[in-house]
């Protein structure tokens, strides 16, 4: 059976099109040219994601040195042991359950505060920043130029019993005597998380809000909506992808954060998952358990990431 000459195969058609396009632009690119641009990213992923991830797996399913009790990764999957994984799961649903709940609660509250404050700021800069937009943006991003550690140290000084926050509060008679902000309070940890991560919420929100066409808002007004309902029915639904992106960007690192709690509280009553992992890493014999806790946390975080990817994909399809 022979194919009719008038119907070339789809592959041939696309090749012809590519060649024509190249001829038109006057440049010939070899086949590998464009995919080669992905190679640094692929190398990056291999070296800084897949290899470390496999190391974590090899430690989680590995063993410990009988003398030093440091983790000994087992690289060959056929020698993997599941005892540490079972133990880690046991603790996750037992001893550590409260810590997981506490962490979720802290992250939820901190992300919500980030969203409310961040949205207001981003909205103001995008809509009413005017000529000062760039200056405002620089000011908003400037905390990121200082390391997280330094920013938390600054907070330690501010929140101290003798610090400025207490001095102002007592001067204004808001509180009768200095508040022990740093004496193991969950609220301080939550505020610390907000302070540490809020710039990451503001930036995507700003970028998105700034691109909303003014004409859309005007049409809302023309159709009789007052400013509040324009915001609720036009701006807010339009900014949903940015809200989701902001929430994902701030909440994921918050789940793994241990430093904020260490610096601003130190009390076991405010321990987060990150602190458990950090403690395990620093305890002889618990290296594999730390790796298991890391894997459990990663799997848990796949849920919000999956939701985010799905909803952005849907939004793209809708467009």
């Amino acid at each position, binding site marked *: 059976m022979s194919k009719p000459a008038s119907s070339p195969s789809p592959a041939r058609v696309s090749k012809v099109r590519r060649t024509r396009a190249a001829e038109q632009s006057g440049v010939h690119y070899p086949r590998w040219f464009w995919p080669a641009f992905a190679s640094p990213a692929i190398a990056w992923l291999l070296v800084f994601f897949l290899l470390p991830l496999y*190391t974590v797996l090899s430690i989680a399913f590995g063993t410990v040195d009988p*003398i030093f009790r440091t983790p000994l990764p087992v*690289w060959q999957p056929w020698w993997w042991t599941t005892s540490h994984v079972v133990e880690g799961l046991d603790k996750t649903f037992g001893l550590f359950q409260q810590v997981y709940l506490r962490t979720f609660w802290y992250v939820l509250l901190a992300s919500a505060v980030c969203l409310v404050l961040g949205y207001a700021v981003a909205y103001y800069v995008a809509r009413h920043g005017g000529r000062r937009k760039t200056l405002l943006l620089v000011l908003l991003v400037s905390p990121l130029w200082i390391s997280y550690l330094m920013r938390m140290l600054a907070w330690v000084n501010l929140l101290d019993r003798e610090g400025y926050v207490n001095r102002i509060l007592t001067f204004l008679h808001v509180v009768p005597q200095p508040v022990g902000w740093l004496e193991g309070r969950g609220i301080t940890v939550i505020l610390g998380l907000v302070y540490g991560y809020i710039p990451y919420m503001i930036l995507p929100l700003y970028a998105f809000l700034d691109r909303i066409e003014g004409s859309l808002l005007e049409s809302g007004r023309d159709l009789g909506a007052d400013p509040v309902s324009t915001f609720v029915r036009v701006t807010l639904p339009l900014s949903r992808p940015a809200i989701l992106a902001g929430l994902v960007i701030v909440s994921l690192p918050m789940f793994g954060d241990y430093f904020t709690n260490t610096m601003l509280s130190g009390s076991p009553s405010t321990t987060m998952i990150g602190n458990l992992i950090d403690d395990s890493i620093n305890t002889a014999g618990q290296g594999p358990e730390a790796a298991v806790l890391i894997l459990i946390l990663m799997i848990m975080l796949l849920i919000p990431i999956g939701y985010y990817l799905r909803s952005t994909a849907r939004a793209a399809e809708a467009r």
Partner: protein
Amino acid sequence: MRRSAGAAVALPSLSAILAACTRPGETRTPEQIDLLVPRPDRPVTLPMTGEPIATDTPIESGAELQIFNWVDYVWKAIVRRFVEENSEHDISFSAVTTFNNMEEAVSKMQAGEIEADVFFPTIDAVPKLAVAGLLQPLNHELIPNLEENVWSVYQNPYYDQQWRYTVPYTVYTTGISYRRDVISDSQIYGMANPWEILWDPAHRDRVGVYDSYRDTIQTALLKGGITDINTGDQGDLDLATDELLSMLDLVNPRATINGSYKRLPQGEFDLHLSWSGDIAAGWGYVPEYTRDYYENLGYWFPEDRVGPVDNDCIAIPANAPHPRLAHEFINFLLDFQNAMDNFSWVGYQPPMNDAQPALLTEAEGLYSQISGWAEPAEYVLPWMESAVVRQSDFDVGYRQAPLSPEADERWNDVWQQFKAGVKTGE
């Protein structure tokens, strides 16, 4: 000594990956493991894993002294003095390489990431490091100051008989530091069981313990009346767990590593579990450098001296680039005046024969003498005389010895319960 949250899972070296032909973790013998749990009544002579350097080895010319130590645990002025005294050998020193906790230090040494001339291990790390061949035997002829100046208890310590690998660096007791402007001496010393003050709800939110499982769990054991601070008994450890969980309920303690020497003097705590050396150094961290302010700092340790007492060590890693210089430096640190001057800044007392207890609370240390901004302070402030360590303390006190791996796991379980902060009411 400070520990901050920080160490990460290190990526394995290429050699470790290539060496993974056999299943790891099955190469140690039970005899080796026995060596790891010495006790004062079951002393251990560590095996020789090599030969000490020859006595006539010349000091390495042009060497840079490499120190691997805890943060703030040696006064750089003393190291610089050593460099000056050895100027004919053209040696130099730039900075101390520090670690935050012994696990981090041991894993770095084990991975060969550190090339240090001297290292400052705790007792529990010494047998492990020696058995694994990571320390080198010392040449005693190059360290004459040990025999000359140091307490007799360290001429043959239980954890390293014949001091093959280590010399003692500092000694300390573990008690309670407190703010005397909040708690009077008579109040705490008058209590039937002063450990209970760390559980007193009157000091809620103002109590600190060490972020160090051995010291904090041992405190719970002692509060509960159990004096074997190296126990592996599950019943004892259950009691410690109950005590620690009730502490969470009663006082909401914070676990710190700088709470006693820094944050209590600054007013952040009223009470803190404390190594004697931490509170002795505390005057250097107060907000006002006056005698009046120093008087706010106090230290409790049992008056009959029956409490936890211990020491830290100095050793030379097997891969030390300048072992002869390292011997010279150790001998230098065991010189009476050098040790005392270092003590004046570090706060941790050297076990020196000439460091008479009365001298320590009467004489002003070098650091205080050169601190023009501060009113003078004795090595140990006179009203916290109980922070002075005596050799006799080691006859009656409790020594924190290494735990067997099984016991250690139980201790870690207790610690995890405490650190998870799950209160009994939740």
